[in-house]
C-alpha cells in the first residue's frame, strides 16, 4: 500500500502507452479492463482508507527540484477520496457506453490519459504538481472534442482550451508569488500545500491571491460570466467527452476552492463571500431560466449543470461543515446524474442523430425502459428526496442558511425552476403521442447501454437512501479544513463569522 497513490495516478498512463500496440479491434476491451482495474484500485484505496483519521493518508513524497521546493507529493483525504473514485468510476462507465468506431484506438488512449490527469489533480498535494495535472487535463479534452465532436467541433475545442488556459495563467503567477512569500517567511522554498496551510498572509496579499486563484477556478467551474464555453463545448462534444467534462472536469474547480481558496485565504474568502454568493445565485437562477428556453436536450442538461454548480459554490462558501460536506456530496451526485443524463442523450442521438426536443414526443411508449431510467435520473437531477441529488442540495443550502437566509431562499427557488425545465423536457420528449414516423420504430436500450446505465441508477438510489458512510468520511476532513481556516484567520470579523456559521443556532 506504500505507493498506491502513484499507482492510481500512473496506471492509466502506462496502460495508455501500451494501448498503442494493441490491435484496433480489441482496444475498447482493453480500455474497459484498464478502467476496471483502475476503479478496483480506487475501491481498494477506499477500503484501506482510515475514516477516523482526518489528515492526509498514503502520503508519498519524493523531491523533484529540492532547491526550488517542488516535489512529487501525493496524498488523499476525505475531500479527495470520493472525487478520485468518481473519476475512475465515470471513466469506466463512459468507456462501457462508448460506441464510436472512428479512430477508436486514439480515443481510448486519450480517455486513459485524461483519467490520469483527473486523478492526478485530486491527489496532488504539491501546488506545482497540481498545476501540471490541471493544465495537462486540457490536452486530452481538446482532442476528444475536436476530433470526435460534431458541427463546429474545432471552434468549440479551441474555445474550451483557450478559455481555461488563459484563466489559469494568473493562477501560475499566484502560485509563484505564494511560493515566494513562503520563502520570505521561512527561508526555504516549498510548494507543498500542507506547508502553505501554515503560512499566515497579510489581508491585502490574500485579496490579490484570492483573485488570481478565483479566476482560474471560476472558469473551470464555470461560474457566471465565464460560463460561455461550457454549453458550446457540450453542444459539439461526443457523448463520452460530455460525460467526463460534466461529471469530473467541472469538479476540479469546486474541489480547488475547498482545497486552496478557503484554507489559504480565509480572510479574503469571508471578505468576498457575498459577491461570490450573489454570482452563485445568479448562476442557479439564470442558468435554470436559460435551460428552460433551450430546444436541444443536451443544452438543457448543460445549463442545468451550471445551475447545480451554483449550489455547490454556495455550499462551499457557507464555510461550515454542513455546507462544504454537502457541496462535496453534491459534486459526487451531480457527477453521477449529469454523466448518466448525457449518456442518455447520447443514446437517443445515436438512434435519431438529433437532440432537438421537438423531434421527439411519446418516447415512453416506444422505449419504456429508456423512459424509466431517464425518469429516475431526472428526479435525481431535480433533487427529489430519496435520490442522490437531494442529500447534497439540502445540506449545501442548509449550510448557507446560517450565512444568509435571504440568498438561500432565492437560490432555493432555483431548484423549483430546475423542476420546471426538467419536467418540461420530460413531458415534451416522453409523453403525448408519437408524432414523428421515425420515432415509432426506435429500439429500446441494448445490453451495452444497460450495462453502463444500471450501475448509475443503482448508485442514485442507494446513495440517496443511505449516504452516511460517505458523508462521515468527508465530514472528518472538512472539519479539519475549517479548523485550518479558523486558526489562520487574521481579522476579528473573519473569526466572528466562522464562529457564527459553525455553531448551531447562530452566535451564542
Amino acid at each position: 500500500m506504500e505507493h498506491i497513490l502513484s499507482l492510481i495516478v500512473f496506471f492509466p498512463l502506462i496502460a495508455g502507452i501500451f494501448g498503442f500496440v494493441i490491435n484496433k479491434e480489441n482496444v475498447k476491451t482493453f480500455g474497459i479492463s484498464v478502467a476496471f482495474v483502475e476503479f478496483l484500485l480506487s475501491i481498494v484505496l477506499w477500503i484501506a482508507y482510515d475514516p477516523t483519521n482526518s489528515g492526509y493518508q498514503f502520503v508519498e513524497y519524493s523531491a523533484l527540484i529540492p532547491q526550488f521546493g517542488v516535489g512529487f507529493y501525493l496524498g488523499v483525504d476525505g475531500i479527495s477520496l470520493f472525487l478520485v473514485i468518481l473519476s475512475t468510476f465515470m471513466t469506466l462507465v463512459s468507456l462501457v457506453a462508448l460506441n464510436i468506431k472512428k479512430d477508436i484506438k486514439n480515443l481510448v488512449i486519450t480517455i486513459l490519459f485524461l483519467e490520469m490527469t483527473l486523478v492526478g489533480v485530486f491527489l496532488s498535494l504539491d501546488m506545482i504538481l497540481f498545476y501540471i495535472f490541471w493544465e495537462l487535463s486540457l490536452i486530452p479534452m481538446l482532442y476528444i472534442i475536436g476530433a470526435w465532436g460534431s458541427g463546429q467541433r474545432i471552434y468549440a475545442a479551441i474555445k474550451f482550451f483557450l478559455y481555461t488556459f488563459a484563466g489559469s495563467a494568473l493562477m501560475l503567477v499566484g502560485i509563484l508569488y505564494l511560493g515566494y512569500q513562503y520563502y520570505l517567511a521561512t527561508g526555504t522554498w516549498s510548494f507543498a500545500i500542507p506547508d502553505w496551510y501554515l503560512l499566515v498572509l497579510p489581508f491585502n496579499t490574500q485579496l490579490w491571491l484570492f483573485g488570481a486563484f478565483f479566476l482560474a477556478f471560476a472558469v473551470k467551474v464555470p461560474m457566471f460570466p465565464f460560463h460561455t464555453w461550457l454549453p458550446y463545448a457540450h453542444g459539439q462534444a461526443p457523448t463520452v467527452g460530455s460525460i467526463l467534462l460534466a461529471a469530473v472536469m467541472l469538479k476540479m474547480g469546486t474541489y480547488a476552492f475547498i482545497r486552496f481558496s478557503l484554507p489559504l485565504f480565509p480572510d479574503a474568502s469571508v471578505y468576498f463571500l457575498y459577491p461570490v454568493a450573489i454570482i452563485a445565485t445568479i448562476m442557479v437562477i439564470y442558468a435554470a431560466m436559460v435551460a428552460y428556453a433551450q430546444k436541444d436536450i443536451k443544452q438543457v442538461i448543460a445549463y442545468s449543470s451550471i445551475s447545480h454548480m451554483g449550489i455547490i459554490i454556495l455550499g462551499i462558501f457557507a464555510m461550515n461543515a454542513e455546507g462544504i460536506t454537502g457541496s462535496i456530496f453534491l459534486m459526487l451526485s451531480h457527477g453521477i446524474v449529469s454523466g448518466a443524463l448525457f449518456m442518455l442523450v447520447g443514446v437517443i442521438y445515436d438512434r435519431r442523430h438529433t437532440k432537438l426536443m421537438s423531434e421527439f414526443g411519446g418516447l415512453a411508449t416506444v422505449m419504456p425502459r429508456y423512459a424509466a431510467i431517464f425518469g429516475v435520473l431526472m428526479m435525481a437531477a431535480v433533487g427529489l428526496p430519496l435520490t442522490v441529488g437531494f442529500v447534497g442540495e439540502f445540506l449545501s443550502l442548509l449550510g448557507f442558511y446560517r450565512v444568509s437566509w435571504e440568498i438561500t431562499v432565492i437560490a432555493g427557488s432555483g431548484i423549483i425552476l430546475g423542476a420546471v425545465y426538467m419536467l418540461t423536457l420530460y413531458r415534451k420528449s416522453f409523453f403525448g403521442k408519437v408524432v414523428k414516423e421515425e420515432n415509432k420504430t426506435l429500439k429500446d436500450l441494448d445490453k451495452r447501454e444497460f450495462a453502463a446505465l444500471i450501475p448509475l441508477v443503482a448508485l442514485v438510489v442507494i446513495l440517496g437512501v443511505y449516504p452516511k458512510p460517505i458523508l462521515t468520511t468527508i465530514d472528518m476532513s472538512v472539519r479539519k479544513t475549517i479548523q485550518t481556516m479558523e486558526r489562520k484567520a487574521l481579522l476579528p470579523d473573519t473569526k466572528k463569522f466562522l464562529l457564527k456559521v459553525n455553531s448551531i443556532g447562530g452566535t451564542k
Partner: protein
Amino acid sequence: MLNPISIKIATLNLATLTPMAILAFGALAIICIDLFTKRLDKSFFVMFTLLFIFLDFTALIGLNGPSRGFFGVMLVDGMSMLAQGIILISSALFIITALSNKPFKEFKKAEYYALFLFMIVGFQFMVATDNLILIFIGLETASLALYTLIALHNRNKAFEAAIKYFTMGALAAGFFAMASLILYALTGSIELGVISKVLVSRGFAPGAFTLAGVVFMLMALGFKLSIVPTHTWTPDVYEGSSAPLAGYMSVVPKIAGLVVAIRFFDIFLSSQIQWVQDILIFLAVLTMTLANITALVQEDVKRMLAFSSIAHAGFVLTAIMVGGTQANSAIFLYWILFMFTNIGAFTMLWIARHKKNLWGSRYQHPFTKFSGMVKVAPMMATLFAIFMFTLAGMPPFSVFWGKLYLISSVINSGHVVLAVIMVINSAIAIYYYMKLIVYMFLKDPITEDGNIYIANSSTPIKTIVGITLFFTVAASIFVQPILSVVTELIKSSGY
C-alpha cells in the same frame, strides 16, 4: 629603440584558449584533407566535425575557472563555460542533421564544415571574454561564417536570407563599434570590468553619453537576440535557411548574445540605474507581445517558429533586467531546456521536407501541409505536438520548468505586473502552437501518403529527435541536476 618585451609563456595561461584552438585546428584539418582527396562523403565530414566538437567539449570541461588568460583578455568563468557547453551541444545536435536522407549540395562541401567550426570558434570567443574588441571579433567571425552557411543552401530564398542577414548584421556591427567607441571615450577602457568601475565611480555621468552607449549596445545585441524593433530579419532568414540551421540560429547566436548582454547590463543593474531597467522592461514586453501577436497570423510553420523564438528571447530579456543569481540561472536553465525542444521542433520540419509542393508554392511548410497528419503519420504527429506544447510552456514538459523559474525570479524582484504580462503572453502564444496541433489532429488529411512527412528522415536524424524528445519529456527528472550545476557556475562567476 624599443625595449624588448619579455613575457613568460606560463603567464599567458594558454589553457584558456585550448577549446577554441582545437576547433580551429579541426577546421583547417578538414580543408587540408579535402585538398588531398576529393572523394569524401558527407558522413566522413559530419563525424570528423563531431569528433572535434567532442574534443572541444572535453577540453572545456577540463578548464577550471574562474581564470583569465592571454593578457587578461580571455575570461573563463562559470557563465562562459555554461554558454560554451550550450553552444557545443547544440552544434553537435545540429551537425548530425546533415546526414539526411535526401542529398543536399552544401553537405558535400568541406567548406561547409570548416565554416561551421570557425563559426563555433567565433561564438566561443564571444562568450569567453569581457573585452569589447574580442567580443566584436568573435561576433563577426561567427556571423560571417553563418551568412555563408545560409547561402550555401543554394536556393533563391537562401541567397535572399543570407544577404538580408548580412546587411542587417553589418548594421549591427556598426552599432557595436559605435557603442564600444563611446564607452572607450567615456572610460578609457574596453574591458567591461574596468568600464564598470569607472562608470560607477563617476555615478554614470555624463548621462547622455552613457545613454548613447547603452542604446547602441542594445541595438547591436538586439539584432543578435532578435529583439523588437531589430527583429525584422528573423522570419525571412529562418524561412530561407534550412530548417535545422534555422533552429540552430534560434539557439546559439542568441545564447552568445545573451551572455554579452548579461555581462554588459550587469554594470548598470548593480547600481540600480532606473532608466536602463525601464528600457529593458519596455523592450521585453514589446518583443514578446508583438512577436506573439504576429505569430498568430503566420501561415507557415517555420515563420511561426521564427516569431516564437523572438517571443522566447523577449521572455528571457526580462531576466536580464532582473539580474542576480536566480534570474541569471533562470536564463541558462530556460535556454538549455529551450535548446533541446527548439532543435527538436526544427528537426521535425527538416524530416518533413519534401521537394514536391502539394500545397501551393509560396511556403515550404504551410499549416495546411500538416492537415490530418495524425491519420497518415501518427507517430510524427504526436512527437510534433509534444514539441509544440512544450514550446508553449505546457507542463510538465521541459520549457515549462524554465518558464516557472524565470517568472519566479521576476516575481521575486517585485515586478508582479511584468509577471502577469508574461503569463498573459504565454496564454496568447498557446494559440499559434495549438494551431499546428489543430491542423495535425483535428483536420482531415490532404494526402494518403504518410511518406511525404518522413521523406528526409534517416536513422541519425531520428536519433536526434529521440534525444531531444527525451530531454523534453523527461525534463521533470533532471531539472534539478541542471539547475544545481547552473546555479553553482553562475554563483562562481559572481552574477
